[in-house]
């Protein structure tokens, strides 16, 4: 009985369902000091003075350190890392854990308080008085581009970098010059607050006499944190242990190296006492990076039949006040995908990154790719209107390989798509969503003059995940590689331990990896234990983000299993004085071909490898193998989503009433988990389309940092989803798997806004900015009607 491909229930669940699982704030350590931060209330200012005297006298306060004092304590040797300097001349102002003379965004740390309890630490923060000399704040991308003020006073301009991807500039020029149809559209990818349900937190536990340190962090990246902590602080990398406990969601928010992690680790080390911090929700708008933050311009050129000739994109990207870990590269991750699933001969992309005095931006679910699919899919609908074609038809006409199945296809942006098969995906989506029926209902309401209009929006997306071939990363100036590591060992009593460098935070890795190993080794999934997220147990890895864990990490595990079987085969063969080629391995048992009574289980082989009483010459004891897998290519999941909205013309309210998602992530390990990833991904993209935005005033204050007015949707805002799947195996790895963690988000924002514009198409509405709030929709209708209410 196979495990892969089944809807196996998750091993992770019982601990999570009963409250037994330990998240960062659940872990208590004797002698711990609570850290709280004094954060800037100004977006841009000189720090004239920081008065900590009163705060120091508050009950329970152990110490208060200003940024200047922290600098004098020589706690770190380098600024916080930016691991993706996208160009050689990229501007990268040093970002230290606390500001000394100048603050560059609301929320930047000015001082830290250490106290005996969390309440006492919070009280003492209120007692610190900061004297600011305000400087002009750059509070938007437009202000950054205008450059009347600079976000960093020592800079002459706010421009951080210019990054082009124009494989053939002449061809691009020609495509637009000769085109029968051209459209141009501008979109805003508003800033989003990632909002995993668990805020971040850290706990650093030093060993004053041992010299080592353990840092617990609610992080997606324990391995990256370990090496970066060493590089930033000078602490010996071999003395650092990073543990990610149960992590309550990430979505990219926990993919960074943060000031609080550096502060906790270095202060704990210096003071010889554990130091901890837990983020409050309202603090997160300032203490954790934000997502998106781009202004896009996309132009499409097409012939008289609507066949695409060229695609030209420019992005102005808001980096925020500082470059964080991979912030500058996020817009570029999408750069390769602006032609989407379409056969576009000529392509060009440029991106200008800018500094603003706002929270730094970095990865958030999809990281550059939802932005890309949004731009091309919205542009395709606009082009459809221009050419006079139905949104379905214009897509069909332009699919790569004519919608037929393909492998290893090079696209205009120079990427090689591993596999695709776009035609059936579209067909299934139209059938499952009852597209014809929806169009009929839409028309019925229009004919009847009903005030609640139906809108149907399509999105056919492709995404690029399974980060990443290390050589490609080198070419992009990314500071790390993209491999993943796995060790598989059979214990003497026959149980299996899998050590993975992937670091789950809700994705069900323990279950999925058990399924892979169960089928490979012929063992019960219940006999497989997955070790992860602790650098002492899992020393090698590049962590979890970019939908890479299965297509890189899971593949490494499968390959390690193959090595284990190879070795076990040799041991078994030796036992029967047969040659390894004569040993058949079926359902966990090695048997001599043709002599089924001469058999031994893999568990028995494991015990034999442990006792080493009779191993073949030259073979080492123990049954453990490891693999570091560097994928030869990305993986390219794709799909077709259909969103159905009801727009109330009198109030502007948009209701998401239906959603069909057809996704293709290659071969699936656990369809239950895959569906769950799609569901969650859909809602985050829909939330960007309809509800979420980090609002900033002209002074650079975020005016909605709490969940009261940062609108993360509840169960009432979203419907049930219809999900279906096609399976087009990847050529990038032996399992034929792709990723699915971000695909839902990459499909949904465009589908929802396409639906809203479709509902309003009777008024000639061609675009609406995200989020499509009732006010925005109402005004759009009013303006389209020529000012009449």
């Amino acid at each position, binding site marked *: 009985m196979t495990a892969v491909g089944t809807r196996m229930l998750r091993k992770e669940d019982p601990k999570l369902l009963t409250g037994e699982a330990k998240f960062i*704030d659940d872990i208590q350590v004797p002698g711990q000091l609570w850290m709280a931060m004094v954060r800037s209330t100004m977006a841009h200012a000189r720090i004239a003075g920081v008065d900590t005297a009163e705060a120091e006298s508050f009950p329970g306060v152990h110490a208060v350190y200003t940024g200047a004092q922290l600098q004098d304590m020589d706690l770190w040797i380098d600024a916080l890392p930016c691991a993706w300097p996208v160009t050689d001349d990229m501007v990268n102002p040093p970002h230290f854990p606390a500001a000394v003379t100048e603050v560059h965004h609301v929320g930047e740390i000015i001082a830290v308080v250490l106290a005996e309890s969390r309440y006492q630490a919070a009280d003492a923060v209120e007692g610190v008085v900061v004297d600011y000399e305000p400087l002009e704040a750059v509070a938007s991308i437009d202000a950054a581009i205008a450059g009347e003020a600079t976000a960093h006073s020592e800079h002459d301009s706010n421009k951080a970098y210019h990054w082009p991807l124009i494989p053939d500039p002449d061809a691009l020029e020609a495509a637009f010059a000769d085109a029968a149809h051209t459209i141009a559209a501008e979109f805003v990818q508003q800033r989003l607050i990632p909002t995993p349900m668990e805020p971040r937190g850290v706990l650093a536990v030093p060993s004053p006499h041992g010299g080592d340190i353990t840092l617990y962090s609610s992080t997606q990246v324990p391995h990256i944190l370990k090496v970066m902590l060493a590089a930033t602080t000078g602490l010996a990398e071999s003395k650092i242990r990073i543990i990610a406990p149960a992590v309550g969601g990430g979505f990219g928010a926990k993919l960074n190296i943060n000031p609080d992690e550096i502060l906790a680790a270095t202060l704990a080390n210096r003071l010889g006492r554990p130091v901890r911090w837990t983020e409050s929700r309202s603090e997160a708008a300032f203490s954790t990076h934000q997502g998106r933050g781009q202004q896009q311009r996309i132009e499409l050129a097409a012939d008289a039949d609507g066949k695409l000739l060229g695609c030209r994109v420019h992005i102005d990207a808001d980096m925020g006040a500082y470059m964080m870990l991979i912030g500058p590269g996020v817009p570029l991750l999408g750069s390769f995908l602006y032609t989407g699933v379409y056969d576009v001969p000529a392509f060009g992309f440029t991106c200008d990154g800018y500094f603003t005095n706002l929270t730094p931006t970095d990865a958030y679910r999809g990281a550059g790719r939802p932005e890309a699919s949004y731009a091309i899919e919205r542009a395709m609908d606009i082009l459809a209107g221009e050419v006079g074609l139905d949104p379905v038809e214009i897509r069909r006409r332009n699919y790569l390989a004519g919608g037929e199945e393909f492998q290893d296809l090079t696209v205009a942006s120079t990427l090689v798509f591993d596999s695709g098969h776009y035609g059936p995906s579209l067909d299934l989506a139209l059938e499952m969503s009852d597209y014809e029926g929806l169009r009929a209902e839409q028309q019925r309401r229009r004919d009847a003059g009903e005030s609640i209009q139906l809108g149907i929006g399509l999105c056919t997306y492709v995404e690029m995940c399974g980060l990443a071939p290390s050589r490609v990363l080198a070419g992009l100036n990314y500071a790390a590689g993209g491999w993943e590591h796995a060790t598989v060992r059979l214990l003497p009593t026959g149980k299996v331990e899998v050590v993975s460098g992937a670091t789950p935070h809700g994705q069900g890795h323990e279950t999925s990896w058990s399924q892979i190993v169960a089928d490979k080794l012929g063992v019960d999934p219940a006999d497989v234990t997955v070790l992860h997220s602790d650098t002492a147990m899992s020393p090698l890895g590049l962590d979890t983000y970019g939908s890479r864990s299965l297509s890189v990490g899971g593949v490494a595990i499968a390959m390690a299993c193959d090595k284990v079987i190879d070795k076990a085969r040799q041991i078994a063969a030796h036992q029967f004085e047969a040659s390894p080629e004569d040993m058949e391995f079926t359902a966990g048992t090695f048997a001599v071909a043709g002599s089924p009574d001469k058999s031994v289980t893999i568990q028995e082989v494991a015990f034999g490898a442990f006792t080493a009483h009779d191993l073949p010459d030259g073979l080492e004891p123990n049954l453990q193998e490891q693999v570091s897998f560097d994928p030869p290519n990305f993986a390219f999941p794709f799909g077709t989503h259909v969103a159905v909205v009801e727009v109330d013309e009198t109030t502007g309210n948009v209701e998401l009433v239906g959603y069909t998602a057809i996704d293709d992530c290659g071969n699936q390990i656990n369809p239950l988990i895959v569906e769950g990833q799609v569901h969650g991904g859909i809602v985050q993209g829909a939330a960007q389309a309809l509800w979420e935005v980090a609002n900033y005033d002209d002074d650079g204050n975020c005016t909605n940092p709490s969940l009261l007015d940062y609108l993360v949707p509840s169960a009432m805002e979203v419907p049930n989803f219809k999900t279906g799947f096609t399976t087009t195996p990847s050529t990038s790895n032996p399992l034929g798997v792709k990723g699915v963690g971000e695909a839902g988000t990459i499909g949904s924002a465009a589908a929802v806004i396409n639906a809203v514009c479709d509902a309003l198409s009777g008024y000639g509405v061609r675009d609406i900015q995200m989020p499509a709030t009732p006010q925005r929709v109402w005004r759009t209708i009013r303006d389209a009607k020529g000012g009449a209410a």
Partner: protein
Amino acid sequence: MEVELTINGRVYSGEVEPRTLLVHFIRDQLGLTGTNIGCDTSSCGACTIHVDGESVKSCTMLAVQARGADITTIEGLAGDDGLHPMQQAFMESHGLQCGYCTPGMVMAATSLLSENPNPTESEVREGLEGNLCRCTGYHNIVKAVMAASGGAS
């Protein structure tokens, strides 16, 4: 101030400041860390527990207000014979991913069913409006609650 209350059938007592939130008392002083904190504006519901039979956001109650109360937290749901039917339903429907919202969601869902034993899907969504989840998109949570109620989904 002195607080004495019953949680999951056991009597606890402790010394608190008047301003100590019930959720902090439960988590930090009594060590019952299953109940989680996801926001600071009573918006997310991760801290949901039962107080005298009602579902309550424990971040929005002071510890001193719970004197003498009979409280059930997530730790009190499963019995010696296994998971509570709601917990079992969440597992079978894949109604959790990271698990952070889950204790509060399960407590809110059990309370919902105690008041409305056979809700419609719409009533489930409305009843769980105060419990945010970022991972599941709610689809499987609704499925779990409907399954636990014996209703089709």
